[in-house]
């Protein structure tokens, strides 16, 4: 289970310098912990593609950003994602809220987000992990550090 304090602990262990985000209702609960951590800068942007390119600028400047958005924003941000990961070849890392995942698993929801989020990431060739309630901050650290060690982009889809 990832909550704000656990996420902040993981980000500090990863050496993250900036969180670039447009929160959803789950990720948004992390805000007090993120704001309260002096070693992290929380960068608020207006659109998810913008979050990705702000993170790209930070990466060019030798900082260690992470992007936090909802999957709906991932759908919007395709061109920025393509450009930053495949043209600039930067090791972008994202945490993406997967709206309605649990409802979809239970056959209750009509939200199409769970149908398309993973195929979209596969289409953009972004290696990713699905995190559910069993995953911990240790898993987040592992996923991030593996991606950085391999100098590649990576993402976590956070089941909601």
């Amino acid at each position: 289970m990832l909550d704000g304090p656990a996420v902040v602990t993981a980000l500090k262990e990863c050496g993250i310098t900036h969180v670039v985000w447009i929160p959803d209702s789950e990720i948004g609960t992390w805000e007090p912990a993120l704001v309260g951590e002096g070693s992290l800068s929380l960068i608020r942007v207006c659109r998810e593609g913008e979050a990705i390119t702000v993170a790209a600028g930070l990466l060019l400047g030798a900082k260690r950003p992470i992007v936090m958005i909802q999957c709906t924003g991932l759908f919007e941000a395709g061109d920025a994602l393509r450009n930053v990961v495949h043209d600039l070849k930067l090791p972008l890392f994202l945490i993406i809220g997967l709206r309605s995942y649990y409802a979809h698993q239970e056959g209750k929801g009509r939200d199409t987000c769970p149908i398309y989020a993973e195929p979209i990431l596969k289409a953009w060739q972004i290696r990713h992990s699905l995190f559910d309630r069993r995953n911990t901050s240790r898993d987040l650290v592992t996923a991030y550090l593996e991606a950085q060690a391999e100098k590649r982009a990576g993402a976590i889809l956070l089941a909601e």
Partner: protein
Amino acid sequence: MAIEPRKALEILAQNRGQRILITTMASVGMWPELSNTPLDFAYMPSAMGHGPGLGLGLALAHPERGVIVINGDGSMLMNLGSLVTLANHSANVYLVIMDNGLYEVTGGQVTAGTGHTDFAGLALSAGIKRVYRFDEEENWRAGAAEALSGPGPVVIWLRIRGRLGQKTPTPPRPMAEQIERLRQALA
């Protein structure tokens, strides 16, 4: 009389100091004739409209350096929210909007904003305090030093002449080489 685009960039080159300078779209083709330093970053291939975001990230990473972003009006219209984001950060970003009312690299089609969109007004309304508008070469020459000095964010709206028959420009060097040069210069 709108400013001739090459003249607009010459004046910018004379006043850019040691700042990082990001070119996008049409300016990618013209800038290498005026400057060729590791701090010149041709954002091509790009995600159109995202030059300001890239510049903001670099400015946050290197706050002492300052970043000039040259954006076209077409690119600006794709990401107007970036003005609000810039206003929300005390970062030394100098956003130069080269407004010719055209999508120049696709053959000169007019944009949705041609003739009626006030980029200075949009920037001010977004919350950016330092906003400049220059419609003529002499005014830009006289005001460039002030506009490009002091703290950011700054928005500079240049009304420039459109050019027809332009092709999509080619960046002066591969992206990987550009990134390496820039990183070495900033290290």
